[in-house]
């Protein structure tokens, strides 16, 4: 069952906008997706959370679009939309009935061309209040809600751009000014810092003409600042431990490791390792801690690939009330360490790959996902065709590759162990495992993902 090849064209407008178009006429639906090469890693000291706050401002109108009108037009056209901000980038996207493609392109172009014409203190203050409530609902008022901030703080030194989480701090959000918005927009929101992907029921010639018409006149920024970070050692150089008292009924142990940045083939081996460890009910951690040992309520392992420094390999286990923290931690860390000591079995490898293959097949069915991946690979790897190479990279991983990657990285001196225990006394300001996404927004749009802050 081959995953279908995604055909596409890849070109640049004279102003530097990278345009990727992929046709698929199965359903009369088209996805528009813009990645800007700016994320929370570009934020200045004292301005954490700004990239995400800015993303909210992008929905507040532009010269030809009133406040709230962008979303009104998209929804009245039968479209869905969102924007998200993450350490490495910011993206904006719409999925539309295909005859409404031109509207989505016009809306994206108008805010890129003329956002500042509509900017007001009132709108900034309103969205600042919204974002602070986003932080409260997804982090501050949630059990375990500080885990990202804590882990990032241990994995990266204070002067590193990944040290702070995308959602930022309340103090810094308060400090953001209209001048900051203007400067940020003029610096980063330029066609030569963006990739526009259009996927679905599209006539490429007409789409190209619309893109040229609407985006063509937007001037490039010839002075986009280069982004460089001093490389960090591949490993932490020593184990770090922290225990947090929180308003949680069950103890939860997080373990996090530095992993290679994107482009490193070992990430595919680590993805297989994550699958073998906790990728389903047949996985090692689920079997040992949840099913057989009955000491954990749940387990999870996942990999967050990053572009400008070490990626993160993260896991957690939640301790059942009738079990001890020590027993869970010992078994949890032992299973991770075992991957470095012995090969995964051929059957485990086969099952992990079969599940990854199905997962790819499922994700790539949707035009929105294909558009986002094309933008991602163009932005981060300068190679949109990676969309067609990923599965082969997973399938090429051997048991020896998994063991080698785990032996190099999933080791004690590269580990952060963060443990949340029930607070003994008075109420503390809680916090969350935002992975249990609680969507309290209307109909889904504009929510905050696990680690990426969304519109």
């Amino acid at each position: 069952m081959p995953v279908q090849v995604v055909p596409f064209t890849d070109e640049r407008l004279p102003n530097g906008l990278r345009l990727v178009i992929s046709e698929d006429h199965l359903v009369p639906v088209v996805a528009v997706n813009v990645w800007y090469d700016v994320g929370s890693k570009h934020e200045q000291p004292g301005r954490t959370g700004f990239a995400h706050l800015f993303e909210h401002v992008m929905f507040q109108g532009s010269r030809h679009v009133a406040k709230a009108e962008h979303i009104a037009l998209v929804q009245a056209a039968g479209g869905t939309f969102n924007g998200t901000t993450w350490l490495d980038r910011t993206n904006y996207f719409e999925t539309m009935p295909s005859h409404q493609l031109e509207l989505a392109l016009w809306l994206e172009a108008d805010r890129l061309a003329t956002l500042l014409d509509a900017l007001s203190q009132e709108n900034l203050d309103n969205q600042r209040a919204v974002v602070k409530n986003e932080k409260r609902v997804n982090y501050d008022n949630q059990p375990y809600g500080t885990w990202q901030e804590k882990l990032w703080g241990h994995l990266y030194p204070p002067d590193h751009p990944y040290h702070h989480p995308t959602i930022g701090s309340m103090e810094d959000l308060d400090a953001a000014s209209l001048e900051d918005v203007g400067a940020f927009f003029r610096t980063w929101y330029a066609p030569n810092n963006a990739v526009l992907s259009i996927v679905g029921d599209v006539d490429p010639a007409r789409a190209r003409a619309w893109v040229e018409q609407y985006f063509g006149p937007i001037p490039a920024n010839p002075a986009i600042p280069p982004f460089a970070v001093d490389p960090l050692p591949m490993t932490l150089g020593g184990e770090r431990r922290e225990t947090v008292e929180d308003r949680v009924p069950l103890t939860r142990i997080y373990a996090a490791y530095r992993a290679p940045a994107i482009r490193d083939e070992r990430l595919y081996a680590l993805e297989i390792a994550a699958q073998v460890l906790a990728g389903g009910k047949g996985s090692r951690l689920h079997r040992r801690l949840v099913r057989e040992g009955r000491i954990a309520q749940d387990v999870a392992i996942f990999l967050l690939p990053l572009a400008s420094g070490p990626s993160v390999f993260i896991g957690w286990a939640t301790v059942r009330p009738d079990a001890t923290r020590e027993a869970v931690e010992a078994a949890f860390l032992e299973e991770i360490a075992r991957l470095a000591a012995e090969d995964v079995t051929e059957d485990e490898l086969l099952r992990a790959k079969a599940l990854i293959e199905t997962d790819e097949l499922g994700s790539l069915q949707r035009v929105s996902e294909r558009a986002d991946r094309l933008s991602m690979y163009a932005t981060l790897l300068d190679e949109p065709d990676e969309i067609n190479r990923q599965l082969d990279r997973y399938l090429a991983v051997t048991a020896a590759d998994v063991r080698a990657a785990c032996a190099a990285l999933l080791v004690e001196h590269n580990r952060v162990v963060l443990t949340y225990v029930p607070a003994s006394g008075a109420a503390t300001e809680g916090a969350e495992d935002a992975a249990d996404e609680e969507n309290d927004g209307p109909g889904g749009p504009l929510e905050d993902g696990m680690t990426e802050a969304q519109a």
Partner: protein
Amino acid sequence: MSALDPLEAALGTRPVPGTPRPFTFPAVEQGRLPGGLPVRFIHLPGRPLVTASLTLPMGAVDEPAAVGGVAVLAARSLTEGTRRRDALALVEAAERLGASLRAEAGWDATVVGVEVPAERLAPALELLAEVVREPAFPPREVERLRDQRLNDLLQAKADPARRAEEAYLATIYDPASPYARPAGGLHDTVAGIDAGVVGTAYESWAGFERAALVIGGDLAGIDLWAILERLLGDLAPAPEAAARPAPTDAGRLDRPVVRVVHRPGSVQSELRVGHRGLPRRTPDFHAVAVMSAILGGLFNSRLNMKLREEKGYTYGAGAGFDLRRHAGPFTARAAVNTDATAPALADLVAELRRMRDAAPSDAELRAARDYLVGVFPLRFETPGPVVAAVTGIVTYELPDDELERYRPAIEAVTADDVLAAARAHLDLERLGIVLVGDADAVAADVEALGLGDLEVVREEEGAGLGD
């Protein structure tokens, strides 16, 4: 902005939509296996990831109150082992196919489903048939799942949103109604469940009365009839009883009440406001859909525009009807910062009232109708949602053309229909208002709003809300 401004020249004129390419809901092939099990196939060319769902229209609403949560546990236990193989052998067999095999019960139905690449559909269906026909319900696994549910209920007490939902249901529904508790049950109803209870519950559904199998995806070249005849062909569903016993879905309130669940130091208040709502089979379904979209469904709904985009009180406010076989809840919800609690609640209730006071504007009506009609093809891009929609027709015993009728019926909704739906189905006289937040910081201001009798619930986070 002179006419010579190139940006103005390029962007000054709004585009007009092109001609819509027609979209029709995919054709559904219907039939019965030799023993009588109804099947529905939807061939979706170019969609090699196939979804198959066997629905047993028995859910949490059908279970005895004393063992509330047994349907959810029974469904999860289905994949914990069969008479032929234990849980791990079963999950490993599915994983080797790259298949996800799942069984979940909701309020109205239990769905056993598998998602698998088309070329491995046959062996995946074999697993599906095996768990449905030969479940073993191993006591040790059932008890583990029960304990996990009990621990999950502990976790819910620390999550303000889940705590608010639980308190809200207990506030608005008659204690005798299953809808007064979460579908997964509460501590006292779950604690006594074991493999015997689960087995008995499953036996009562496994006559396969009203069951149906729905399969969608690229089915070209697959002889589904032959495969299914082999696996499920002898399955003879019991004759349908005239009517299932209907549990009560009565509301509890005869006047508005306000319950503040104290969560010391909470930086937000989780608000839930509403009452007993409507069943899925409701004659003005389409008017209710448009009304809900205007009130709290669209991003630019009245609630979200007021509480988020105007006031900045919340990250998102919404409202809607949870339409079930019987009258599920109508709920308006938002999480607001603590010092905005009383004004946010006042605005929220005012928007519910305004919905009943006057018909929506033409612009509001058009925006809601256009969204619901326009987004229809987007909803059915892939097999999973197509199969789920067809399964819903079975579960709610809706006419076969329900999905074809949807868009014209939405188009036909008028402003007066919306007003009539609001007046018929939004009940300001029986509002349950529940908030989970810092009572010491918010209760006095909330009481001063005069929305109803106010009760403050102070309890350990580990304890259950008395109901």
